[in-house]
């Protein structure tokens, strides 16, 4: 059933879901859930928290769907905005611990537990990503990991395309600086 809905736009799926179409809602959730989980995970480094945030985000969207305006924001943009606010709430609620301790081992081990050599690399990179200023973090996630163009990311961040390009360049520069101490290991692990 979900396959039949794969070509239908988000807005149409929302409209059907708001009328009680369970399969439309399931298709909509399947389309966006992984992205929202990933978005929260990149920013927090914790799988459990990322899933909590994704769940809360989708729950809010289920309520919003009843009054959804098709010509307004895109569904994905709305979800990222809500998830982003929830991430900020989590970050504020956290105890001030060092970022490397913030990244739970489970979130990385879950990916490829058998590659011990890769674990530290991932932790180092994630630590550097989480340490970025929020907007640099978001644009790097959107463009590099989520595959959005700079123009699309600019729209989601409500900045000009030029500002988004500048932000992305600063994010990459910050990442380079943050990874500088572990450069040799990272380059060695990548080759």
């Amino acid at each position: 059933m979900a396959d039949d809905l794969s070509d239908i736009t988000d807005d149409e799926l929302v409209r059907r879901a708001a009328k009680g179409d369970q399969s439309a809602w399931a298709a909509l959730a399947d389309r966006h859930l992984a992205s929202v989980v990933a978005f929260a995970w990149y920013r927090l480094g914790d799988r459990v928290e990322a899933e909590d945030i994704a769940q809360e985000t989708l729950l809010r969207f289920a309520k919003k769907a009843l009054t959804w305006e098709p010509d307004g924001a895109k569904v994905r943009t709305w979800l990222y905005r809500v998830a982003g606010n929830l991430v900020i709430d989590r970050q504020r609620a956290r105890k001030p611990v060092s970022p490397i301790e913030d990244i739970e081992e489970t979130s990385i081990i879950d990916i490829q537990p058998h590659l011990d050599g890769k674990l530290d690399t991932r932790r180092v990179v994630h630590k550097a990503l989480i340490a970025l200023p929020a907007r640099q973090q978001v644009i790097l996630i959107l463009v590099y990991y989520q595959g959005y163009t700079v123009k699309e990311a600019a729209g989601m961040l409500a900045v000009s395309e030029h500002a988004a390009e500048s932000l992305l360049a600063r994010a990459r520069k910050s990442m380079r600086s943050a990874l500088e101490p572990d450069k040799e290991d990272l380059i060695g692990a990548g080759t």
Partner: protein
Amino acid sequence: MTTPNGQMNDDQLNAALDALRPPVPSDMLVRRVHLMAPAPQKVFMTTRRTVAAALVMAVGAATMLHLAASGTVAPVAPPVTPAAIAAISDPAGEIPVSDLVLGDGNTPRTERFSMAGLPLE
């Protein structure tokens, strides 16, 4: 190969970024989210109720038209006007005319009084 200032070049940075692979949503999360489908607002007017309401309104309208056409509808009552204030009744003529005149607010006073209230000569 690094950049001239010794930092990672773009490819090396991209390779490092590629090390991060997000987790896929757990089955439990997927099931939970599927259960969150929006609850559409309940429609209290069922089809049967809608038809019944329309029928009642139609019968009511037809009845009013019939009564209006047959002239049996009660005429509209004239607006109620307040009763006139009764004139001062003085059949024995005991009240001095001057007092009656003074009591009439529409009649200007003819007597003149000083500031102390004494009649002026």
